[in-house]
C-alpha cells in the first residue's frame, strides 16, 4: 500500500506519526494518511507543506460538520447538565460558562449537585461569588437528583434564565455512578418537561484513547449534546476528539484554555486543525 510513485513514504509516515502523537487513534491516523496519499497521487501534490495543508483541511472538514451553538430552551430556564470523569475541569468550566452568560446580562444559577467529593460544594460556592450569580446547594451527601430538582423549582420561581448543574466526577465504568447520572438526567427532564437543553461532556485534552470510551459510555447514558475540551493551553492536542467525531458524531462546542473565568472559547475547527500538528 505504501511505495507510491511520487509521494515520499517517509513524509506520509511523518504525518501519520504527527497524528498519533496528537492522540488521534492509530486506525484513523492510518486511514487519513492513506486517503491523503491517494489524493496526492491523483492531484500530483508532492510538496510536503501542501500535503500537510491538505490533511489539515481534511481534519477541519471532519470537525465542521455540525452546529456548535449551545441550545436554548423553549421555556425558561435553559438547563445545562455537566458531566464527565474525575478531574477534567467540570466545576471550573461551569464557572466560565456562567460568567459568559452572566456578563451578557442573563440571570444564571449554578447547582452544586456534586454532593460527594470533599469541598466540591465549597469550590462551586467560591466561583458563584466571583461570577456574581446564584447558587443552589444542599448539605454534603444529599441526593444529587434532589438538589437538581430543588434548583429547577427555585429557578422557575426566581425567573432564572440559565441553570447549570455540576455533577461529581465519575468513571464511565462505574455502573452505579452512571445510573446515578441517568437518574439526575431523568429528574431534570421530568421537571423541565423536555430533556436538558445541553448534556455537556467535559473532556481533558490530555486524555488519550480512553476518551473514546468515555464519550461512548456517557453518550449511551444521557445522550451527550456537546463536548467541552479543556486544558488546551497545555501541550496536549486533544486529537481523540477527531476519533470521537468520526465514530460518534458528537459535536465539540467549547474549549477551555486556562484556569481563569475568561479562559473559555467557542470551538473553532480551523484553529483546532491548525494546532493539531
Amino acid at each position, binding site marked *: 500500500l505504501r511505495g507510491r510513485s511520487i509521494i515520499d513514504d517517509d513524509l506520509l509516515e511523518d504525518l501519520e*506519526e504527527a497524528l*498519533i*502523537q*496528537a*492522540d488521534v*487513534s*492509530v486506525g484513523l491516523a492510518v486511514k487519513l494518511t492513506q486517503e491523503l496519499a491517494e489524493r496526492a497521487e491523483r492531484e500530483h501534490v508532492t510538496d510536503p507543506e501542501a500535503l500537510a495543508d491538505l490533511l489539515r483541511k481534511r481534519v477541519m472538514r471532519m470537525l465542521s460538520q455540525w452546529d456548535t451553538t449551545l441550545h436554548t430552551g423553549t421555556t425558561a430556564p435553559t438547563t445545562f447538565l455537566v458531566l464527565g*470523569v*474525575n*478531574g*477534567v*475541569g467540570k466545576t471550573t468550566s461551569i464557572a466560565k460558562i456562567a460568567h459568559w452568560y452572566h456578563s451578557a446580562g442573563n440571570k444564571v444559577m449554578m447547582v452544586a449537585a456534586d454532593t*460527594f*467529593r*470533599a*469541598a466540591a460544594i*465549597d*469550590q462551586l*460556592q*467560591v*466561583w458563584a461569588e*466571583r461570577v456574581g450569580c446564584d447558587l443552589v446547594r444542599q448539605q454534603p451527601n444529599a441526593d444529587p437528583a434532589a438538589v437538581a430538582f430543588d434548583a429547577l423549582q427555585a429557578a422557575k420561581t426566581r425567573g432564572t434564565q440559565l441553570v447549570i448543574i455540576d455533577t461529581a*466526577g465519575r*468513571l*464511565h*465504568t*462505574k455502573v452505579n455512578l452512571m445510573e446515578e447520572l441517568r437518574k439526575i438526567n431523568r429528574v431534570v427532564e421530568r421537571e423541565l418537561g423536555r430533556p436538558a437543553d445541553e448534556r455537556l461532556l467535559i473532556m*481533558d485534552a*490530555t*486524555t*488519550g*484513547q*480512553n*476518551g473514546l*470510551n468515555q464519550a461512548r459510555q456517557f453518550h449511551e447514558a444521557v445522550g451527550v449534546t456537546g463536548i467541552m475540551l479543556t*486544558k488546551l*493551553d*497545555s*501541550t*496536549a*492536542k486533544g*486529537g*481523540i476528539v477527531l476519533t470521537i467525531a468520526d465514530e460518534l458524531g458528537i459535536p465539540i462546542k467549547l474549549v477551555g484554555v486556562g*484556569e481563569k473565568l475568561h479562559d473559555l472559547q467557542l470551538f473553532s475547527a480551523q484553529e483546532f486543525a491548525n494546532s493539531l500538528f
Partner: protein
Amino acid sequence: SLTDKLQKAFRHLSSRGKIGPKDVRDGLKEVRLALLEADVSYQVVKDFIREVQDEALGEKVLSGLNPTQQIVGIVHRKLVHLLGDAAVPIKLAAKPPTIIIMAGLQGSGKTTTAGKLARYLTRQGHRVLLVAADVYRPAAIEQLRQVGAQVEVEVFTVPDQSPVEIARASVKHAQAKGYDVVIIDTAGRLQIDQQMMQEVQEIERSFDHTETLLVIDAMTGQDAVNVAEEFGRKLKLDGLILTKLDGDARGGAALSARAVTGVPIKFMGVGEKLDGLEVFHPDRLAQRILG
C-alpha cells in the same frame, strides 16, 4: 487480547510450522498497535519494539514450537522490566522528617492521593503532617482539610503566604511537633508554565532532601512524555504515582513516564475513596497495558 491478535497473525504459519524473521516483524506490528492503543508514547513504542525485535529474532523464537507464546512472553517480560521489576517504597529521610512533595498537572489526583498516602503511612506507624500549599484553586485548602479529617491526619495551613513560605513553615512545625513525615500538596500546574515550575522547584530546593512524586492520570495520552520529561528535568523526581487505575484506561502513560524519567512507579490510585491506594505492581500494569 494481544495473544489472540498474534495467534491470528501467525495463523497462516501453522501449515509450515516454522516462523522466519519476516513473520516476527509482522507479529511485532500487532504489538506496536497494542501499545499505541494503550497510550504508550510513539517514540517509547518505537524503542521498545526495536528491543523486542532484537530478542525475538534470536534463535530461540525462530526455532521454537509456539511463536505466539514466545513473543508474548518476551514482550511481557521486557515490559515488566521496563516498568520496574519490583515495587520501590517511599524513601524515608535519614534525619526526619521525610518531606514528600506531590506534583503534577491539574486534576491528576494530587490532593486525593496526598490523603491516601497520609493514611497509608499513618498505618505504617508514622506521624504524618499534611500541608496545604495550593493557594490558587478555589477551596483547595478546604478540600485538603476535609481529606485530612477523613484520615485523621493534621493539616497545616497558613493564611496569606506563598506556597514556598507555607512549605518551609510546615517543616519547622513538623520538627517542633515531632511529625516524621510531611506531605506537601501543591497546585496543579502545566510543565510549560515557567513561573509555576519555578515555584515548585523553589519548594523542593528549600530542603536538603525531599521525596518528590509526580502524579499522573492513567488516562493521559501521548502528552505524558512531554509532561514527565519536563517535570523530570526541573525537579529531582523520586517516584511516579499513577491515578484512576480503577477505570478502563490502559495506562500506557506509566510506561512513557517511566521510560523518559527513569524514575520508579511507586503507587497506583485505584479509587476515589482514601483507602484506594495500592503499592505498584509491575506485572499487573504490564498485563493491563498489553490488553
